[in-house]
């Protein structure tokens, strides 16, 4: 990191305050830890995206062309594991939460800075273990580690299980840190009702992380115990119930979807007011809906199990509950649209990505209704439809908003600006590629194409061929986008504008890049996060 090159001569900021790689690896500055997360998460994102492209390549036409089915299963598992545990879950909280949550509430740092650094080291340990598992062949269970397969397979699932366990702790510690920070570190004037919505969404996310992550932590250890010691808790031949595993797994993993989605929604609630120059519509309702999503989201896990052999009565109960989780998400979408009303909209790259998010996430959410309905779920469960659906919801929220947030906060974080024209081209490629990749999968699913298939019957070839073509466009878009940002970190046009977009949250009222203690002097909390003047002249 060429820290020195970034500095504007006079100002001392978090980047040039200390020099040398060691000063980064031992830092307790939340902004520097955010940058550490940015580097590592981007690496794992590109790694997993590449695996995804390889999978799609194999699926271009029926028959096995480039790999055998075992290799395919391993790539599939690593793609899912890496994307979920190493990319989407930590991406926005780890990078932008770390960097901006303390600034947005007018604090100097998080409550436990050393713990914060420890979280990153946990993250790296987990990531390293996941990479090590690649060298030993890799796991082949799918990211869900369903028993009995996960304790029967000959593949190496020891490392990945341990990796997921460690990553769970990284996630818990980050959540714990944020919760304490929000409770204890808010500057005078930043009341609960004046907290930026990004902070609200991270607050709700942190609760979910703290409450449900331990479930999957212990569960994965139990699978390890089952493998190594033969305990019998999940082994049907010794009295275990494989469906119980699925319950416990989804008790975590369904709320985990909200761990991925909620921070993304928080970013949306920041970007839209900034580029519409308008106060957010329905602040309270958006804040409350974050908490509602977190709460209702933990009641609906078994809708992943409608064909698992679970009792019919339970399927009915969970289907009924499932529909309610759609309501707070819908409320958010409507409020965002209402925020556009009467605004003065500038279509800067982050805003374009956010508008794309609204449509793409709507597709994801609405197809969720189709999957929530019992009779259609039975047909569509475990088909390519589900693959399409969750890419629209997860990649379409956490992924897109990770990219949007990168474009939004980039000038503040690095004191440089990226090339906007390249950004527009990459966004166009991304959005086209995204839909061309995942939309055909939904149609394939309706036609009966099961998921996690290394090979398929010729009748599904058209869908797969289109989808694979889309994956190339999508991949090109991602590479161009990440390349543009990566290049601009070092060579982008320098800027020390405090507030390039005209935002109202606190991070736009501190120097660019921010100083080590976030503010020169006391943060000015007299203006609320969305207090735009009544009539703004251009």
């Amino acid at each position: 990191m060429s820290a020195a090159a970034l500095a504007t001569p006079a100002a001392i900021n978090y980047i040039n305050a200390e020099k040398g790689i060691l000063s980064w690896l031992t830092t307790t500055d939340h902004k520097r830890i955010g940058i550490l997360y940015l580097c590592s998460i981007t690496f794992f994102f590109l790694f997993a995206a590449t695996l995804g492209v390889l999978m799609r390549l194999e699926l271009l036409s029926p028959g096995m062309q480039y790999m055998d089915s075992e290799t395919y299963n391993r790539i599939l598992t690593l793609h899912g594991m890496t994307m979920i545990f190493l990319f989407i879950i930590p991406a926005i909280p780890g990078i932008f939460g770390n960097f901006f949550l303390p600034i947005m509430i007018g604090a100097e740092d998080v409550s436990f800075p050393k713990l914060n650094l420890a979280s990153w080291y946990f993250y790296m340990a987990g990531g390293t273990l996941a990479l090590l598992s690649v060298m030993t062949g890799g796991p082949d269970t799918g990211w869900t580690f369903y028993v009995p397969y996960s304790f029967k397979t000959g593949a190496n699932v020891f490392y990945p299980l341990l990796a997921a366990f460690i990553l769970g702790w990284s996630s818990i510690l980050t959540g714990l840190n944020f919760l304490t920070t929000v409770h204890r570190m808010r500057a005078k004037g930043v009341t609960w009702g004046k907290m930026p919505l990004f902070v609200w969404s991270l607050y709700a996310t942190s609760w979910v992380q703290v409450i449900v992550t331990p479930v999957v932590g212990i569960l994965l250890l139990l699978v390890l115990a089952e493998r190594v010691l033969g305990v019998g808790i999940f082994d049907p031949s010794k009295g275990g119930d494989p469906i119980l595993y699925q319950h416990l797994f989804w008790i975590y993993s369904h709320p985990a979807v909200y761990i991925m989605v909620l921070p993304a929604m928080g970013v949306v609630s920041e970007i839209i007011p900034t580029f519409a120059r308008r106060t957010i519509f329905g602040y309270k309702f958006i804040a409350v809906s974050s908490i509602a999503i977190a709460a209702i989201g933990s009641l609906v896990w078994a809708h992943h199990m409608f064909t698992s052999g679970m009792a019919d009565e339970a399927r009915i109960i969970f289907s009924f509950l499932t529909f309610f989780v759609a309501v707070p998400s819908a409320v958010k979408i409507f409020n965002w649209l209402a925020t556009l009303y009467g605004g003065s909209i500038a279509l800067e790259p982050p805003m374009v990505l956010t508008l794309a998010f609204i449509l793409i996430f709507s597709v994801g959410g609405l197809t969720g209704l189709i999957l929530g309905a019992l009779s259609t779920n039975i047909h569509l469960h475990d088909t390519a439809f589900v693959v399409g659906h969750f890419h629209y919801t997860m990649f379409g929220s956490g992924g897109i908003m990770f990219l949007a947030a990168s474009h939004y906060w980039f000038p503040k974080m690095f004191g440089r600006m990226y090339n906007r024209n390249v950004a527009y081209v990459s966004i166009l490629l991304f959005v086209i590629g995204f839909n061309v990749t995942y939309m055909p999968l939904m149609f394939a699913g309706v036609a009966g194409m099961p998921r996690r298939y290394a090979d398929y019957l010729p009748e599904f070839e058209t869908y797969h061929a289109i989808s694979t073509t889309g994956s190339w466009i999508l991949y090109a878009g991602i590479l161009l986008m990440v390349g543009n940002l990566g290049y601009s970190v070092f060579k982008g046009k320098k800027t020390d504008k405090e507030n390039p977009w005209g935002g109202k949250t606190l991070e736009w009222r501190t120097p660019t890049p921010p100083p080590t203690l976030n503010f020169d002097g006391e943060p000015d909390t007299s203006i609320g996060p969305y207090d735009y003047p009544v009539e703004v002249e251009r």
Partner: protein
Amino acid sequence: MSTTSDPHVLEHIEHNEHAEHPSTQLYFKIWGALVFLTVLTVSVTYLDMKKFALVTAMIIATTKCGLVASYFMHLRYQARIYSVLLFVALSSFGVFIILTFADMSYRFH
């Protein structure tokens, strides 16, 4: 920079929180109660309680937990936030177990 962690504010909170603190005698009394409940819960297993055995044991255990949490862990003497935290965790656990049994109680009669 003024944050809620301002020393003056803190002192204030700390002062309030430590205004009441269990005395050594109270600690011993609570311990006595815990010992009594433990002896009780073991003793009743020698009676033929049928289906109530588990319920009784759980009621006694919950009472003991309440004592430990309220006095040894000072929940009784501290701001409400800690009890709220505990409530969130326990109610989540309650939801998990109830909804898991929505399946289990129908599948295994």
